[in-house]
């Protein structure tokens, strides 16, 4: 299949029928298995990609002071039923640059696909970096996703990441993100995942608030049905003066599913403040009864409550 056909197929799998539907000034990177099949850059964005045996090594740079007006669109995918894809990602957002990336990871036919990512990310002083990861999986659950990231967020910098499964079975998801947060930096990491059948979800997220007035929120919203299982380990440790952190873990568990949440919070400075909130259980009875009293069936009401939990609107809001 030609590169342009692969780009079209990748984009079609995420609901973009026309690859030219992305505007001309949208930066794009498309990778199928270990081939870079599409690449378009804009001023201030540098991308070097080397193909390896089972994936690619990508170096991404956003030059100092550059504000990318539109999100960079990334598409990583494996279209066959089986395959391996390892992404080695090296990202540096230089001083005062602002950039957001919308990354679609698509494995629509996966029966035995393994997608792994190792990322080193550095957000320089005053820079903003947002990485929105949207996954499209197949119906078989034969997908393993293992992203690992080490992130340094320098003074006055911001790092936001969202992981969302928008279609298909979770399969096996295990991710491990660690952030080091310097003075006045802001970090928000969110995962919204729905698991069913024998899906397995494991999340390890750590934020070390090293700097004064650093802030971090780790948010995990998970819905499980059937025999799915999830384990969430969120850890915020504050060292800096007046650092603020919050861990928010909500899991709805139905049928025979099992969920475990381990929020870990630690404070090494008396002026710092870290909170956590964990709720695991079936759907909230009051919410359920309200929707039943509007005429929804129990299944319809449960689906709507889960839709809310997994929605982008379900952001952490402090009382």
């Amino acid at each position: 299949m030609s590169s342009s056909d692969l780009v079209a197929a990748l984009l079609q799998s995420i609901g973009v029928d026309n690859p030219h539907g992305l505007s001309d000034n949208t930066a794009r990177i498309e990778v199928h298995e270990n081939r870079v099949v599409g690449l378009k850059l804009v001023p201030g964005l540098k991308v070097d990609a080397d193909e390896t045996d089972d994936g690619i090594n990508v170096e991404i740079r956003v030059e100092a002071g550059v504000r990318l007006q539109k999100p960079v669109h990334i598409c990583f995918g494996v279209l066959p039923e089986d395959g391996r894809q390892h992404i080695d990602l090296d990202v540096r957002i230089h001083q005062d640059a602002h950039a957001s990336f919308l990354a679609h990871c698509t494995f629509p036919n996966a029966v035995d696909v393994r997608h792994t990512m190792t990322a080193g990310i550095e957000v320089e002083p005053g820079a903003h970096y947002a990485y929105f990861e949207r996954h499209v999986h197949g119906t078989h659950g034969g997908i393993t996703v293992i992203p690992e990231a080490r992130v340094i967020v320098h003074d006055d910098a911001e790092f936001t990441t969202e992981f969302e499964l928008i279609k298909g079975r979770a399969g096996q998801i295990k991710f491990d993100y660690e952030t080091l947060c310097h003075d006045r930096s802001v970090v928000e990491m969110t995962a919204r995942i729905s698991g069913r059948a024998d899906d397995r979800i494991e999340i390890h997220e750590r934020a070390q608030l090293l700097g004064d007035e650093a802030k971090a929120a780790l948010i995990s919203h998970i819905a499980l049905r059937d025999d799915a299982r999830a384990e969430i380990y969120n850890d915020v440790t504050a060292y800096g003066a007046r650092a603020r952190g919050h861990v928010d873990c909500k899991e709805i568990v139905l049928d025979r599913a099992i969920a475990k949440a381990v929020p870990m919070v630690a404070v090494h400075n008396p002026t710092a403040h870290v909170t956590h909130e964990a709720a695991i259980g079936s759907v909230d009875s009051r919410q359920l009864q309200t929707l039943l009293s509007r005429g929804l069936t129990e299944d319809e009401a449960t689906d709507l409550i889960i839709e809310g939990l997994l929605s982008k609107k379900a952001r952490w809001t402090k009382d």
Partner: protein
Amino acid sequence: MSLLSIQNLSQSFDGKPILDGLTMDFWEGHIHAVVGPNGAGKSTLANTIMGLHGYTNYGGEIFFDGQSLRGVSVDARARMGITLAWQEPARFEGLSVLRFVGAGSKRKDPAHVKGLLEALGLEGERYLHRSVDRTLSGGERKRIELASILAMEPRLILMDEPDSGIDVAALDYIFTALSRLKNQGATVIMITHSRAVLEQADHAFLMCNGRLREKGEISKIGRYFIDRCIPCDHINEPDEEESIL
């Protein structure tokens, strides 16, 4: 004509009677108020009529439009046209006002939902895509809940303390919505302690200690409730021999 007929209704929890032989008729197209001191059983009455979880094991009978509600689930009751507005509405983190209000409605389009919100004094564009969560005030949630009820076009609305947690301006919008429901032929049962709410009703029932003490004109029931029940120092121990009106 009676839309809802309650006959010798009793309800108890842990062996303690909460409702005790209630017989009441609620006329179609009228606004009824149920007043009484805390613990009189008013909310239990509303929850039992709605058939909420934990309230289905009652004695006596509840007939809606001539049909017994025994064994009828909450959602089936709702599809028959019965609904309940809670004293403190539930929050739905992440669920948009548009999705929540449209949930029980045949019409889920934004223009329709926006119109319902605006009838309750909420600027549609500002609220449609907001989450029904803790960022909304109690009064905003109360009005959004009422919008979800208007969207259902129900026949019987049970409202538990409709004025609880809201300001006077918002209350006017709620009263306007109640009039709209009544004009559409709906029947409203308001559980209340408030004179302002009571005055919106066509008829009132006075409950004490799970029993019906009196029913009738708003002015008489209201006066007795304000003068005698509110300052009462023997709560839920009614003066059995005294004629209250």
